[in-house]
């Protein structure tokens, strides 16, 4: 038992960077939609003082090509595969889950209930999870947005609807203007804010959800070092995902795994995962 490291969905393409994917404990696909999507027009990314914005808009080949083309190639790389599932209605989500239900080359389905860059499904997150629960017996992880007043409430609702785990957090909407022209730097103006600036928000969400539900939590948001990862574990995560950091350092999985082990040992843990016990005792003290 230790802390598995994944990539955050949309932050790695195993087909262009197989070695990076293989350095992770499992590979999470970019969110897949029923049909192919071109995504948003460029400019799609902008850096901010302690983070970045993206408005990719779920560019991808659609589920047919995922199944016929991408999954076999991922399997050939020997990867454990999580598929991130997206859509614009509960039916969209459930359809993809059903499609992937029987496949041995997919281990977990992560439901992206929180992409800030596309229109929202009309159904609630819990309704989408319930529809997917009907469609598949695979483990379902609900990926939630930090843009909510009470994330513990959302967590309880999706777990009650059948989610086996939570992925916390997706990006939060942000805007950056070009200081010279005062025009938005992204073509679509608003984008999702990720990176170090998100870390305190992500920690708070993990902390609040770990107190509310018993399911495993994949923590992510601004991890750059092993200490960041250890803090997510101490807040309640069982698994840690790397997003923005992969852009500046494709060697991050190996580096962070080493740092995580060393930092955990320096604090007297036999295993980094043992830091989760700190989470529980801290919560009791703080509440």
């Amino acid at each position, binding site marked *: 038992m230790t802390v598995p490291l994944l990539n955050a969905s*949309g*932050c*790695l*393409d195993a*087909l*262009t*960077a197989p070695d*990076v994917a293989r350095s992770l404990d499992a590979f999470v696909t*970019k969110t897949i939609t029923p049909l192919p999507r*071109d*995504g948003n*027009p*460029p*400019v*799609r*990314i*902008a*850096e*901010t003082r*302690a*983070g*970045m914005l*993206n408005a*990719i808009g779920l*560019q991808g080949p659609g589920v047919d090509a995922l199944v016929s083309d991408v999954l076999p190639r991922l399997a050939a790389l020997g990867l454990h595969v999580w598929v991130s599932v997206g859509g614009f209605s509960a039916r969209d989500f459930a359809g993809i889950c059903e499609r992937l239900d029987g496949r041995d080359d997919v281990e977990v389905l992560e439901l992206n209930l929180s992409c800030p860059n596309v229109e929202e499904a009309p159904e609630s997150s819990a309704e989408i999870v319930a529809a997917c629960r009907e469609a598949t017996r695979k483990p379902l992880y609900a990926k939630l947005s930090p843009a909510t007043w009470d994330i513990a409430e959302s967590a309880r609702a999706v777990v009650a609807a059948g989610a086996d785990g939570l992925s916390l957090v997706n990006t939060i909407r942000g805007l950056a203007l070009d200081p010279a022209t005062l025009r938005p730097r992204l073509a679509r103006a608003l984008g999702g804010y990720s*990176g*170090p600036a998100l870390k305190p928000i992500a920690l708070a969400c993990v902390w609040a959800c770990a107190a509310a539900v018993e399911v495993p939590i994949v923590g992510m948001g601004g991890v750059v070092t092993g200490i960041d990862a250890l803090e997510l574990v101490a807040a309640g995560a069982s698994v840690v995902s790397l997003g*923005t950091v*992969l*852009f*500046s*350092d*494709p*060697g991050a999985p190996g580096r962070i795994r080493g740092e995580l082990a060393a930092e955990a040992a320096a604090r007297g843990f036999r295993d980094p995962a043992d830091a989760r016990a700190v989470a529980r005792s801290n919560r009791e003290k703080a509440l």
Partner: protein
Amino acid sequence: MRRALVEVVGTEPVGPYTLLRVGRGSLSPGMPGQFFMLEAPGRVLPRPMSLCLAPAGELAFLIDPVGPGTRALCALAAGERLHVLGPLGNGFDLAVRRPLLVGGGIGVAPLPYLSRALGRPRALLGFRSAHHAEAAALVPGAEVVLEPTYVTALLPDDPGDVLACGPEPMLAALRQRVPGAQLAWEAPMACGYGACYGCVVEVDGRLQRLCVSGPVLRAA
């Protein structure tokens, strides 16, 4: 694609630009037109830079200080260290018979290394001012025009195999005039190796990642 922590050998002003020379470490210089992602001190994301020159044991980049990342790179001092990832992307196809290099502004950056690889072919460079044009000295035998004249004005009727890098309007004009030209494009990049889908440009009517499909693309 490799990533190494390399040491700054030195920086030299070249007109308004800075030539940043770093130790090569375990990195290969790659092909002309390929690029590297350079860690920009204090910034979250690295910055894409074409290889400009490959002196023995070194990599050299010509950098235009247009924003916070490039300014931080130009301010590096000898002995400081930074992470460099590369070489990345697809460079120029060197199997050309009658090469003609064309560059505009900071688009001159990949041409010194390209010129050496191709045996110092003819090169046409356009700049905004004489100060900027000091960078032409890096390209052997380059012919220079200054604004308001554009470099496309010098283009011979039968230009041969054009290999070009420069501002978008220049590349767009070349794409019209010289089918088959090899053009090195730019786009904002977060990762440089296909991970973020941030750098897409329209190629053959579809949005493709420039860092994977380019940065050098053929004019259709």
